C-alpha cells in the first residue's frame, strides 16, 4: 500500500527561483574562516618564525570555495539548513591545517605537470567535496529515484564492493582500494551512503508491519515478522560478510550500528535493539574465535604495552601524543617530534588525525572537533524530525548517524576506548573517497532539509460567490 505513495517533491516555484539571503550561514562561515585564518597564522609563525599564514593561497582557495558555495545556495533560493555547511567546513578546515602541517611527502601524486603533496591533495579533494555537496543541495529535488530503485542501489553497492574484493589492490593487508585508471578509491565509504538509502526506503515502506505485526519469540519477547525482516537482513548480512572478509572491521561495525539505530527509529521497540546487541555480541565472539586479526586487535586494545615495538606501537605512540598535548596542546607545527626522520604514528593522516589534533591543539581542540560532530548529528536529527514523510525522516536520521557513529568509532579507537578499527575521521582524514562520501551525506541532508516554498494561501472564492452565499448581502 505504502509503495504507491505519491511522489513527494518540493513544490516548484513559478519562474526562476528568487535569491534568498542566508545571513546565519554567512555569519557562521565568517567565524569559521576567521578561526582557520588565525590557526594558519599560528602554524606559519611556528614554522618560519615570521608572521605569515602557512599556506595563504590554500587558505584563500578554501575560504573562496566556501563563500562560492554560500553564494550558490543563496542564488538557488531554497530554504535549506544554514548550520550544516559551516560545521562541516570547520572540520574540513581543521583537517586541511593538519594535512598542511604533516610532512608533505606522506602522499605524493603527480597530476600533469604538477607534483602535489599531502596538503595540496587534501585541498583539491576538499574543493571537489564542496562542489559535490553544493550541487546535490541545489539540484536534488525529488526523492522518488532514491526510494523506488532501492534494490538497484543496494545491488550496485554490493557489486562495487565485490569488484574491490576481486580486483582491488592490497594496502596494509586489506583489500579496500579499487583502482580504475588513475583514480583509486575505497568503495566501502560510498557503500555506507547507499546502504542508508536502502535501509531508509525499506524500513519506511514496511514500518507499520515491522512495528505492529509482531511474532512471539519467547514469553513476552516479540520480534518483527521474519518474512519482512528477511530482505533487509540479507542485505545487511551480505554487506557485513564482504567487509568482514575484506578485514574492514570498522565499516562492519558502522553498518551494523546504523542499521540498529534506524530499526529503532522505525519501530520504536527497545527489545529489537536489545536483541540486535545480543546478536552483535554473538557475532563478535564468533569472529574473535575464527579470525586471528580480530584477536590481535583485541589484544592490542587490552594491553598495547605487551608488544610496544610491534603490534602496539601505533596505539602507544598515539596515546603519547594525546598525553603530550595536555589541555591546550603544543600549538600547530610544534608537536609530533620525528623519530629517526619519521613520524611517530604510522598512518597518522588517515587513521590517526585525532592524535595529531590531540597533540597540537590539546584536549580543547579534540573536544571542539567532537562538538562539531555533535552539531552535525543534532542538526541531522532535527531535519529528520521536521521531514515530511517516513522515508525522508529515516534517510536524514541515517545520514546523521553515519557521520556520528563513524566519528565515534574512530575517535574511540584512537583513544583506546574500544578496539581500533581503521576507518577515517569524517571530513578531517586525508582521502578522496572519505571526503566525497561525506560530501554526499551533507549535500543530501541539505536537500532533505528543504522546507519548500512558503505554502500558498488557499484560493478564496470569488467575490460574486461570496455575495451569493451570504443571504443578507454584504454586511
Amino acid at each position, binding site marked *: 500500500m505504502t509503495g504507491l505513495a505519491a511522489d513527494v517533491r518540493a513544490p516548484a516555484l513559478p519562474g526562476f527561483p528568487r535569491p534568498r539571503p542566508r545571513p546565519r550561514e554567512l555569519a557562521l562561515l565568517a567565524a569559521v574562516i576567521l578561526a582557520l585564518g588565525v*590557526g594558519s597564522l599560528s602554524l606559519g609563525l611556528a614554522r618560519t618564525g615570521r608572521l605569515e599564514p602557512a599556506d595563504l593561497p590554500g587558505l584563500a582557495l578554501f575560504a573562496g570555495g566556501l563563500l562560492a558555495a554560500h553564494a550558490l545556495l543563496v542564488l538557488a533560493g531554497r530554504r535549506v539548513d544554514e548550520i550544516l555547511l559551516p560545521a562541516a567546513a570547520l572540520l574540513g578546515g581543521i583537517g586541511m591545517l593538519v594535512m598542511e602541517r604533516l610532512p608533505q611527502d606522506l602522499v605524493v601524486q603527480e597530476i600533469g605537470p604538477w607534483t602535489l603533496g599531502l596538503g595540496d591533495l587534501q585541498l583539491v579533494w576538499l574543493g571537489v567535496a564542496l562542489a559535490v555537496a553544493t550541487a546535490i543541495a541545489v539540484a536534488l529535488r525529488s526523492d522518488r529515484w532514491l526510494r523506488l530503485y532501492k534494490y538497484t542501489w543496494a545491488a550496485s553497492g554490493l557489486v562495487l564492493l565485490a569488484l574491490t574484493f576481486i580486483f582491488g589492490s592490497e594496502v596494509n593487508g586489506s583489500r579496500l582500494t579499487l583502482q580504475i585508471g588513475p583514480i583509486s578509491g575505497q568503495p566501502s565509504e560510498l557503500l555506507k551512503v547507499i546502504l542508508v538509502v536502502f535501509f531508509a526506503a525499506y524500513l519506511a515502506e514496511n514500518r507499520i508491519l515491522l512495528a505492529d505485526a509482531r511474532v512471539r519469540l519467547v514469553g513476552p519477547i516479540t520480534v518483527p515478522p521474519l518474512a519482512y525482516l528477511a530482505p533487509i537482513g540479507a542485505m545487511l548480512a551480505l554487506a557485513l560478510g564482504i567487509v568482514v572478509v575484506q578485514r574492514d572491521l570498522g565499516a562492519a561495525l558502522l553498518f551494523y550500528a546504523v542499521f540498529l539505530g534506524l530499526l529503532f527509529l522505525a519501530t520504536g521497540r527497545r527489545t529489537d535493539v536489545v536483541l540486535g546487541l545480543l546478536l552483535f555480541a554473538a557475532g563478535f565472539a564468533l569472529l574473535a574465535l575464527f579470525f586471528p586479526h580480530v584477536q590481535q586487535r583485541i589484544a592490542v586494545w587490552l594491553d598495547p604495552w605487551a608488544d610496544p615495538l610491534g603490534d602496539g606501537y601505533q596505539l602507544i605512540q598515539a596515546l603519547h601524543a594525546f598525553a603530550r598535548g595536555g589541555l591546550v596542546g603544543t600549538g600547530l607545527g610544534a608537536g609530533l617530534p620525528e623519530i629517526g626522520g619519521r613520524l611517530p604514528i604510522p598512518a597518522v593522516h588517515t587513521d590517526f588525525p585525532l592524535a595529531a589534533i590531540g597533540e597540537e591543539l590539546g584536549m580543547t581542540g579534540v573536544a571542539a572537533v567532537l562538538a562539531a560532530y555533535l552539531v552535525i548529528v543534532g542538526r541531522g536529527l532535527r531535519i529528520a524530525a521536521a521531514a515530511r514523510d517516513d522515508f525522508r525522516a529515516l534517510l536524514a536520521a541515517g545520514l546523521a548517524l553515519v557521520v556520528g557513529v563513524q566519528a565515534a568509532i574512530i575517535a574511540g579507537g584512537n583513544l583506546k576506548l574500544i578496539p581500533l578499527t581503521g576507518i577515517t575521521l569524517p571530513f578531517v582524514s586525508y582521502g578522496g573517497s572519505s571526503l566525497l562520501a561525506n560530501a554526499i551525506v551533507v549535500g543530501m541532508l541539505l536537500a532533505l532539509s528543504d522546507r519548500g516554498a512558503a505554502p500558498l494561501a488557499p484560493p478564496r472564492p470569488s467575490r460574486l460567490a461570496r455575495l451569493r452565499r451570504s443571504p443578507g448581502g454584504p454586511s
Partner: protein
Amino acid sequence: MDPGLNLLLWVLRLAFLALLWVALALMARALLRDVRAASRDPAASLGRLVVVASSGQPAAGAVFGVDAVATLGRDLGSSVVVDDPYASAQHAVLTFRGRAWYVEDLRSTNGTQVNGAPVVGVAALAYGDEIRIGDVRLRLERGRG
C-alpha cells in the same frame, strides 16, 4: 625565536582554540533558537492533511493539522469538514494509535479510499498516503514537530 614572537605565537595558539569554540558556540546558539522556535510553533501537530485535489471545499492546497483523533465528513462539527456531494456527514475518522496512523470508514454511503483501494473497516496509513472521500483527495504528511 625572540621572546616577542614567542609571546605572539602563544597568543595566536590560544586565540585559534578560542575562535574555534566561538564558532561552535554560535552554531549551538542557532541550534537552540531553532528548537525553541519549533516548540513555540502554534501549527505544531502530530500530522497534517494536505488537500491534493478537490471539487469544492476545502480548496486544493489547504492544509489541516490533525491530532490523535480527527473526524472527516460533511458535518460542521468534524475536525476536517469535507464539503463534497459524495461525502457523508460522519464519513471517516483518522486516528494515531501508538506508532501508526489508521483511517476508519464510518459506514459512509460512498466509501473511503486509500491510494485508490477501498477501505474495509480500518486501514493503516503511512505518511505520503492519499485518502479519497468523494472527489476530495487528502495526503497525510508528518506534522511540523
